[in-house]
């Protein structure tokens, strides 16, 4: 197994353990994702993929272990704080902001940085200090809308979109603020082949162009193999194998875990 490339700006998960009511969901898990790298996580049902994802996103607290992004240790940070440090994610079941237009969905993802003038400016609407900022943000949103092919639905309420477009809104929302780490949770579920291919292109583009690490949890092994540089295979909460994607997928331990041949204990 290759020693993980330690990078000053990537994601580093060390000795992570999580248990729910006595059941050990993750035991001593390690993951490294460098900027620009696409890293896949595979494993059968119940392997702990989603738990790992949730712990990195901050939705579930780790019992022990350390999660850091570059020099920022985020083990105990709230999801909001992580997002502000550049950890952005999508959801297994798409969660767009149904109350907002597609454009506003993306805009919201930048606006935590504040707009100048605070609530007072919100109330009065036309404040010069804010307008310049608005123009720049709209320009960035337009860029991402084009990338995700969402221009035609930009002013439509996101709740009205079919699942394929909704997933694109989620992806656009996750990348619009130039993340340092992008977490994708089963992004292809509900997508057709054309949409899947489009998604793969965007993810590659973001990883390469923005120097952003990508952590991908996915059950479609063909998709994950086509996209990932490296893989972590989990089973029953432990790391079975990690390293370059082709090595991991070829390992017998991974085949056994998926197919259940032979005892895996």
């Amino acid at each position, binding site marked *: 197994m290759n020693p993980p490339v330690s990078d000053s700006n990537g994601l580093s998960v060390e000795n992570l353990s999580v248990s729910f009511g006595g059941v050990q969901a993750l035991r001593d898990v390690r993951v490294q994702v460098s900027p620009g790298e696409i890293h896949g996580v595979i494993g059968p049902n119940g392997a702990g993929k989603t738990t790992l994802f949730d712990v990195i996103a901050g939705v579930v607290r780790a019992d022990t272990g350390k999660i850091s992004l570059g020099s920022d240790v985020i083990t105990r940070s709230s999801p909001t704080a992580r997002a502000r440090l550049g950890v952005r994610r999508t959801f297994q079941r798409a*969660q767009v902001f149904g109350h907002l237009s597609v454009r506003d969905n993306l*805009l919201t993802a930048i606006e935590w940085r504040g707009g100048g003038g605070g609530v007072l400016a919100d*109330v009065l609407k036309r404040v010069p200090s804010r307008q310049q900022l608005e123009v720049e943000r709209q320009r960035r949103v337009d860029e991402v809308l084009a990338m995700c092919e969402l221009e035609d639905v930009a002013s439509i309420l996101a709740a009205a979109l079919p699942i394929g477009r909704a997933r694109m809104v989620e992806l656009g929302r996750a990348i619009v603020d130039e993340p340092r780490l992008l977490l994708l949770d089963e992004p292809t579920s509900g997508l057709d082949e054309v949409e899947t291919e489009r998604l793969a292109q965007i993810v590659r583009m973001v990883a390469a162009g923005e120097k952003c690490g990508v952590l991908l949890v996915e059950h*479609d092994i063909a998709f994950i193999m086509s996209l990932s540089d490296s893989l972590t295979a989990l089973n029953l909460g432990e790391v079975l194998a990690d390293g370059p994607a082709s090595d991991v997928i070829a390992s017998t331990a991974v085949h056994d*875990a998926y197919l259940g041949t032979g005892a895996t204990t």
Partner: protein
Amino acid sequence: MSKFLSLALSGGIFGGIYGLFASGLVLTYTTTKVFNFAYGAIAFCSAYVFFQLNSGLGLAIVPSALLTIGVFAPLLGLLLDTIIFRALTRRNEVVRIVATIGLAVALPPLILLIGSWLTVTAGVDLASDQQVFLPPGLGPAPPARWQIADGVVLDSNQLAVFVAAVIVAAGLWLIIRHTRLGLSIRATVDRTDLASARGIDTVRTSRISTVTSTTIAGLAGVLIAPLFNLEPTVFTFLMFVATAAAVIGRLQSIPIAMAAGVALGVVQSLVSGYVEVSPQLLPGLRSAVPFVLLLGGLLLLGRDRSRRAGTTIEETAAPDVSGDVVAWRRRLPWALCAVAFIGWVFLVDEFQASLAAKSMAMAVIFLSFVIVTGIGSMVSLAQAAFAMSGAVTAAILTSHGWPFFLAAAVGAVVAMLAGLLVAIPSLRLGGLSLALATLAMGFMADRVVFRIEAVTGGSSGRELPRPSLGPISLDSDRAYAIVLLAIFGLLALFVTNIIKSPTGRAMGAVRSSEVAAASVGVSPVRAKLTMFSVSAMVAGFGGALMASTNMRISSTDFSTPLGLVWVAVVAVFGIQRVGGAFAAGLAFVFLPSVVGWFTDSTLWPQVLFGLGAVAVVRYPYGLLSVSTFKRRRRTPADREHYLEHEQPPSTPSPEVSIDDGSQGICRLEGIVAGYGGVEVLHGIDFSVPRGGILAIVGPNGAGKSTLCSVMAGLLPSTAGSVEFDGVDISQLPADKRASIGLVLAPESRGIFPGLTVEENLAVWLSDPGDRELVMQRFPALAPRRKLMANLLSGGEQQILTMAPLLIRPPQLLISDEPTLGLAPRITESLFELMAELRDGGTTIVLVAEQAANLLEIADHIVVMDLGRVLAAGPVEHFDSQIITDLYFGESASGRTI
């Protein structure tokens, strides 16, 4: 008897009332997840019926009581369950709260109206409800009285309440712990889907418990009628006090709620006996004790665990606020309204003009509801207290010579600070807890702060002169009405701006999904806090305006119970939009006089407002959106347009039929199903041969669990049919399917974690003898009978899933991922149990992701991926290589990435 003991005794006996209410509240909440704000109103209606049967119709006490408790209350419960509670369980929390508040507002005046209609029109000789009356109690009349200490008196009516409360609580506890019905209720509460998969009719179960809790309210009404005046507010107040006890029971435990109710009575009695407060300083401190406890209980115990990611019922925006209408067309109707309003103010007399002024001041207050509930999705029941804070502050400052608008602005800031005081600790608790916390805080303010003479100026209140605009005096009602309209318009514009600002977008994001909002750097707590405090500010400002139309504010002008009526009024017209506030302001002020043209009764407006709020169950966006709502529902063409993209890839499924000549026990044809618009299964056809084991294998996301849910009847299919034993069962609910022998053991463990081992078995095995057989067959379970099932190990839980099915075998068992997370040795013994079941004649459908083990035990294989059947046939046709290829996508899935 010592003073302490006698105070405690009398308080505890009085606390029986709270216990009774609290038990009923907990019962409703656990079974329907609806906190019934109308519980006190139901008790009032029962008390009124009891009184009229007895004093009006001259029926003896006992038959009157029996008719009320045994006939009226259950029927009312059945009615409410059918038209409201059933539908409410599918609505979000805001709608649940608002609808039951509407019911609480509407029911008491409704029953009084029915009473007077019976007297006047139908000529029934009822007792007049104009005079103060006390119905007799169940005991001797006049009630026997005992002097238990100096100044502490008990009477037989109070004793009756206590005895009944204890009997009810014990009875409920017995029913819930030790009967079949109770088991069904608890199983339904624990895991609804599994309960119906085990043959429990969950709809009937929750109906029974709603009716039961209404009956308890009926009993409470009859028992406490003799103790107090027959006043709706008394009953509602008692119920809110009892809420503290229900919260201490975490809205879960009836015995704890009962005990807490009694303890509450004791504490209240001791406080009133021992704590000496000067009536000038803190006059209402004693009566505020329960609300202090309610607030404390909420903060300590009230964390609402139901609001996890993805479990909330997502609200959608009102169908007509999408902004696809041109700006001038949206504004024109409101501009016309404003012009009409101004014209009308000049036409009518001075009295109508003063009403017009009041209506706009009220519209400003109602705007605060639009902000907190409409935009912020939180229910605040303390808006009246915020309005009061604003008004009182403004009054004090103007009396020191401050100009009106400056004073009102400071009043708004004071209201905002009060809002922050309640919101900061309670915002994280979730919707219902926040509503209850604001309610507690509202009552505390009513009873303590606003009774202080230095604050509200005693019984005569404080003067609050109207402002003047430079040289123009606004003492004329016409001028003031127009100025207030302008103020409302300006504030409404600000609110509209907020919706379209970064803060508004952040709030919109939080409403849709708090987790997703946090994932893009929005702080949900901060967004809500902003909305809450802005709303409190507007309420405070509006309170000052409203008081200035009267030129006076006194301590009872804006009370918390009145605030409940306000909630109902705004909800009627649409709490999501500023137009709703405008219409609500007009209606709140003018409806009474409009109704006055038709009838002398003053009760009608309240009934109309309350019932209107109940209608949010059907029309969550209020009256102003009803027409649009209907139109959209008829022609959902625009939505379909976007759904066109969502055609599933049309690769033909390479179907191999499993047909060994015999008629299959279960046949699926063209099953299409999914969740919330996402199609998971794209047309599944296969037939399960009778006898033997059929294995469904496929990777994560293949749709296996969805298919299981469809077969078991837990998830309706959008197309296709399920046939069982030659009969089409597509429309049959899960519990009926279980009772004809089609049973699902859901993914991972088919157990009720909150029930004991014994109770888990009893859900399927009602005969104790059968349960003994289980214990003999699996001696490992015997010592754990009384243990909660979630304390068992994974393997034991799986045995607990299978064991009852071995004793009473179904015809067809669908077992979804039974080996998930099990050690290989346990997997083996589980398969032995399956084989035993098969040998007994049960057909088994076994679902798993890991295929190889199954090849040894299965007779037939169905391979699925991405919602279709890839291959199916007798096990001989498969070897692990074929399945490997199918899994890893080299040959069959045909992906081209």
